[in-house]
């Protein structure tokens, strides 16, 4: 529970090594606190997230999954945002079929200097998930 009596959510973040990882590291460096229930798995690119990994996270007890997408900064391909968006859409469909709230999966572009944006996302996602549970 947090200070407002809300449950601290467990959030899995799929981050990317070159783009969003530096931003998340910078959030720590700048002591821009975010909930301790946030866990990060780093990948080369946000378009590499498999829907089965997301669903596995819910199955194992994560309240939410956040994809810290490369956005237009993706060093691999400019279609990254579109491709990551498609993964999210497909997973939302599967979540609906499984009676899971699609809002438990979020995606936002987090650039290499977007530490504040990341922290904001984590706090608001944590609040949402804390209220929902």
């Amino acid at each position, binding site marked *: 529970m947090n200070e407002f009596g809300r449950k601290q959510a467990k959030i899995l973040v799929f981050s990317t090594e070159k783009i969003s990882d530096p931003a998340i590291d910078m959030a*720590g460096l700048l002591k821009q606190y975010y909930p301790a229930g946030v*866990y990060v798995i780093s990948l080369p690119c946000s378009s590499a997230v498999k829907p089965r990994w997301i669903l596995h996270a819910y199955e194992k007890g994560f309240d939410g999954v956040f994809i810290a997408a490369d956005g237009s900064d993706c060093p691999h391909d400019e279609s990254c945002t579109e491709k990551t968006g498609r993964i999210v859409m497909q997973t939302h469909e599967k979540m609906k079929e499984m009676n899971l709230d699609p809002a438990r999966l979020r995606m936002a572009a987090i650039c290499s200097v977007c530490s504040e944006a990341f922290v904001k996302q984590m706090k608001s996602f944590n609040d949402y998930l804390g209220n929902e549970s």
Partner: protein
Amino acid sequence: MKKKIGVYICHCGGNISDYVDVEKVYAEVRNEKGVALAKITMFACADANQKEMEADIPEKDLDGVVVASCSPQLHLTTFRAVVERAGLNKYDYVHANIREQGSWAHSDNKSGATENAIHVVKAAIAKVRNAESLEPIKISSVKAVAVIGAGVSGMRSAIALAKAGCKVYIIERDHFVGGRVAQWENLFSTNETGEEIIKRLYNDTINNDNITLYTGAQVLSQSGNIGSYRLKVQINPGFVRNSVYSYEMDEAISVCPIKIPDLFNFGFTQRKAIYRNHSGQLPIMAVIDDENCTRCGDCEKVCKDIDFSQQKKEINIEVGSVLVASGFDTYTPKNNEFGYCVIDNVITLPQLKRLVAMSDRHLEYKGNRIKNIAYIYCVGSRQLDGENKYCSRYCCTAAIHTATEIRRKYKEINNYHFTRGVRTYGKQEIYYSEALKMGDVFMQSFDNELPEVLQKGNKTFVKIKDILTEQKELKLQADLVVLVTSMVPRDGISVNDLFKLPKGRDGFLKEIHLKLRPVETVIDGITIAGCCQGPMNLTESVNSALSAATKSYSYVSKGELELEPIIAKVDKEACTWCDACFKACPFDAIIKVEEGFKVFARVSDSICKGCGMCLPVCPKDAIELNSYTNREIEEMIDMLASD
């Protein structure tokens, strides 16, 4: 599957252990499946611990290693090298980040930080348990470096790179080289003038066949990655053909009707839209300032060398690394900050330096002979309320050096320093001591009780509660008040945005680690040098430039780079060739293979960049990425989700 894993949990001095209960993490992970050895260490990266790890690996017959410490951006390479030295494959090593994403991110919540660290270490153990030993992929690297900025740092690094046999392209936004140093006269500690230094560096630059210098140029776009960055550079014309000191050119400058403040002299003087380099700036030439020229044609009428038909050019260059040396700006005080812009005789230190450079027998300002100068320190730095909390480091020495130079040049001057504690570190202390011997007076105020600048009639006074004389209130009538302003990050540098270079809290470009990787950025192949990284004096800038040149050179010197063998692999039994992966791959790395009746996809190892875009599109889930297999990721999730 690894069965003998070694786990090392780092205190990082107190950076981790002040917030994470390291003993508890150790107790929780020591009995994890596959863990044969667990240790706590004060500094995992220290030589002693590295040697201990090298000894542990063969002694305990370890087949996998986890270090739980800082960000992998800092020490992944270090520990991979340790396990390699001990005879393991470097991909049998997994790094757990419990500092940047643990103790620091949750130092407001110690139990949460500890819980977080336990799960992160367990997940790393799960990953290494399933890790595969891999061999690195080699890619070619273009033996060329782009240097952004032709100040002292840029030119010095370019010369070092060129001497090492590397092709260098210098891209300078201004039409002249020299940067800030061109503006200064005698410099600490050799008494060489800025002009002499720039001239020497410029001659070395243009006389080196390996260096191509583009002035009036800026990077428009970039693509590629380390080893092969492709830059599109725009070169702006100067609209002057034969740039020599001719009577006609003098006439052209004289007839130009446009007058704008000359930023080289911080607005003390004006220049025309057509103007020449100042002494200190090179090359010796005249150019037309496209932004301010109205194309009235007056100059064209009197000088045949004016050529308005010159067009902007775009060129493409390919380099293996980019070295950014884009310099700094000086802080401009706010309106009425210590009387600036409101009281007539309040100027900044850079302005004073130009004033001294332009004045010969007597120091005069606005027609008045100067006798008493008051220097107010830490303007635009060490701010309690403003944005610039940092110490700008160079300004104490710069102010004292300028004051002593003024005393030497004009005997009648008295210097009064209103400081917040003098920070002339290292050899610069010599100047402080010299200034004291020459009779300069130093006073000091607390951070929250700054000196005041007051105007009474046509006289200007500076008032201070001096903590060196038991907070006695002292008041000085000053002929000139000099605000010792800080270095601030330079705005409008296109490469900073194009490469999305990270900035620190102070707004300057941020290195990966101040001590361990001081010139590298998180963007592979991009290095930083000089004052774009933070306030530095000239010696420090040159050291930084040489360091960045060495790092950039290491990326291109061999003509090839070793990249991680993180590539996709297809399970040909499961694949039925639907072409979804073929369409998803941005690099055309997927090949259709037919073997008898079996049609399946194959990944070309040399083309695959390991982005993983092909993974989620496969309807049969027949593609995996090395180091990111379903088993590795899902077991990590299991560990992170566990209670």
